[in-house]
């Protein structure tokens, strides 16, 4: 058996490497920037370095998401021991100009410079995304150089499993997958479950259409996810783990697969991890395009190679999960928070955010908003700060109309609640949910009944068909919405729709059906007049 990785030695070596050249060019090579042409930009810089013999002066480092996706490709010039300049919309030509100007003339290029003093950057608090734009996700050394696997080493060598769970309890972290269940309680359940075989499962299904937090975490910091899984498994007595990733994320699958292999080679996974008695094997499992598979019991069925239909709980997975053995499912972002908690202590984590929603939350900011991208803010940040300051407001002089959170299970929050604190409980009070972190801004032109119909179509398509309220109810609600939005609806249709909402919510088997009416309920609550305006009947009462 090879010796385990020496974390401190790797850190030292990386430090030397970092200062080897006078310049480091960090180029975002995350999905959004790649779509915007980052591949050609990086190639142009690499060619330049070769052509002009700059290899001793400049090293090019591809990194994960730098955040401001709408301004990609993003590039950062870093001078040894000194200043940094960030650049936006860097075409291959611009990249050449920027690198030459810095390296040869010590001059920045204002034309493409990105203002990092704007609230988009200054109002964020990056815990989960701390490594985004910093490390090279393909190199474990890069992760280690920024403190990676220290938490695992600390847990395995200085803490008992109970003490690990105690830190999680102190952090008061709640699950990031949607429901906000206290993480420590779930870990405690698995730890106390009887039996030798126990599983930890990372939920990377990210079904919310309009969200890409988990994707970015898996692609840009795969080792962070693995480290979180390993700590979770150690704390709960599990020796096998799965990461369930949707097939639409081939890059995340590839990166995780590779990271697992590399971690195993370095004795961070496998047998006798870091020369302790802790063993853990981790495997990636791939979904195949079914939203319901994000639901934990459906997900387990899918890992077993079956149709991904949910089942009634109890028994909860922590009692009876994969192949009947106790299993704990945590969302990818939840797991990405674990290493920092163990590193810096549960109390530190609890000092971020609000009393009942601690820590930070990553949001994918999209829709009718100036700065689209990935952001991370302390829980409790107001919606206004996210939309107006960080997001830069609604473009084209249009008015803000609503923010949608929670995807097909969530709701639309109108302008009058812009000062709401974004945390689990406040959003629920408004009839939406935190969800996994998709945050779509809609301007005055968006018609709310259309939005409700859009999500209902989604839920209808994605209903697995096992229970009748969800299978038939979503079809009925969709056809009512169709009739209404086409202008052929009646007052009775609207009454039927409201009635169906409560029936489907109260009688569906799993969270998909139970939450499917939410977009309708919330738009009816806040934008009822838009529905009423669609009804061209005599008896219509104008609001």
């Amino acid at each position: 058996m090879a010796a385990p990785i020496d974390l401190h030695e790797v850190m030292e070596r990386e430090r030397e490497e970092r200062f080897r050249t006078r310049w480091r060019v960090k180029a975002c090579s995350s999905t959004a920037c790649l779509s915007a042409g980052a591949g050609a930009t990086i190639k142009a810089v690499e060619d330049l370095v070769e052509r002009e013999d700059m290899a001793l002066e400049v090293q090019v480092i591809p990194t994960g998401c730098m955040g401001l996706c709408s301004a990609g490709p993003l590039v950062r010039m870093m001078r040894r021991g000194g200043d940094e300049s960030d650049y936006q919309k860097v075409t291959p030509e611009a990249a050449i100009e920027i690198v030459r100007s810095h390296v040869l003339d010590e001059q920045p290029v204002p034309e493409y410079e990105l203002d990092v003093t704007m609230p988009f950057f200054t109002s964020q608090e990056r815990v989960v995304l701390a490594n985004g734009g910093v490390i090279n996700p393909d190199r474990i050394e890069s992760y280690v150089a920024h403190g990676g696997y220290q938490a695992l080493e600390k847990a395995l060598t200085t803490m008992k499993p109970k003490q690990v769970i105690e830190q999680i309890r102190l952090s008061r972290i709640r699950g990031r997958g949607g429901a906000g269940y206290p993480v420590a309680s779930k870990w405690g359940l698995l730890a106390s479950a009887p039996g030798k075989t126990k599983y930890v499962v990372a939920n990377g299904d990210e079904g919310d259409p309009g969200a890409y937090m988990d994707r970015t975490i898996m692609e840009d910091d795969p080792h962070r996810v693995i480290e979180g899984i390993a700590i979770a498994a150690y704390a709960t007595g599990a020796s096998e783990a799965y990461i369930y990733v949707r097939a639409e994320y081939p890059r995340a699958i590839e990166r995780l697969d590779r990271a697992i292999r590399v971690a195993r080679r370095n004795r961070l996974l496998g047998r006798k991890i870091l020369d302790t008695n802790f063993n853990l094997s981790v495997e990636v499992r791939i979904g195949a395009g079914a939203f319901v598979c994000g639901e934990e019991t459906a997900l387990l069925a899918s890992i077993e190679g079956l149709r991904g239909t949910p089942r009634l709980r109890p028994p909860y997975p922590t009692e009876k999960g994969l192949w009947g053995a106790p299993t704990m499912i945590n969302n990818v972002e939840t797991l990405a928070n674990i290493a920092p908690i163990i590193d810096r202590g549960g109390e530190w984590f609890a000092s971020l955010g609000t009393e009942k929603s601690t820590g930070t939350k990553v949001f994918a900011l999209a829709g009718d908003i100036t700065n689209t991208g990935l952001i991370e803010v302390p829980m409790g940040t107001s919606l206004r700060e996210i939309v107006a300051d960080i997001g830069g407001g609604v473009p084209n002089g249009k008015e803000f109309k609503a923010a949608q959170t929670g995807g097909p299970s969530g709701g639309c929050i109108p302008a009058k609640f812009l000062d709401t604190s974004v945390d689990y409980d406040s959003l629920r009070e408004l009839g939406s949910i935190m969800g996994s972190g998709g945050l779509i801004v809609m301007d005055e032109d968006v018609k709310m009944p259309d939005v409700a119909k859009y999500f209902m179509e989604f839920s209808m398509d994605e209903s697995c068909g096992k229970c009748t309220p969800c299978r038939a109810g979503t079809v009925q609600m969709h056809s009512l919405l169709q009739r209404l939005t086409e202008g052929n609806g009646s007052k009775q249709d609207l009454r039927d729709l409201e009635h169906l909402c409560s029936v489907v919510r109260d009688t569906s088997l799993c969270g998909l059906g139970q939450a499917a009416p939410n977009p309708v309920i919330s738009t009816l609550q806040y934008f009822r007049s838009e529905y009423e305006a669609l009804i061209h009947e005599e008896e219509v009462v104008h609001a």
Partner: protein
Amino acid sequence: MSDTTTRRVVEASNRQQGDHPSGDNRFELVDKHLKRARYEQDQLIETLHVAQDVFGYLSEDILIYVARALRLPPSMVYGVATFYHLFTFEPPGDHSCTVCTGTACFVKGADAIVQGVSDAYSVPTGETSADGSLTLKTARCLGSCGLAPVVVLDGSVLSHQNAESTLELVGTAVGGEG
């Protein structure tokens, strides 16, 4: 299909020796996966992915082949395959156009793009045009919401699309074949 898979397929079918008993060497790639997965039954979904990657779609023959290899009833394999949206049972067209209809793209007008392509090529979403030139698909969020609306045409990601711009690019791709 990814580039590496394409290359492997080409390599496999060029090979003279080690012909697969079925007469179709592409099955070798499926076999290779099965072997690596130790023929475990819970590897069904992974195996179907590999088969679809290699063949482009899942024909009845392929489903039966997978069922036999994993010692599963064909009805169960069929049941699993049809449950998941990503598996297709018809050969794909020469070109593929996937329009993202995730929330961000929806808000930015993805519907008009779907409608535009669908009308212009008389192809309903999820199907292939009668002449086999174009398959029109929709996807739920490609994770590039900042570039909405997003379209993927033959594997390349197109950002900030509208119906006209997409139609023009689709036209070039499909027409470019001559």
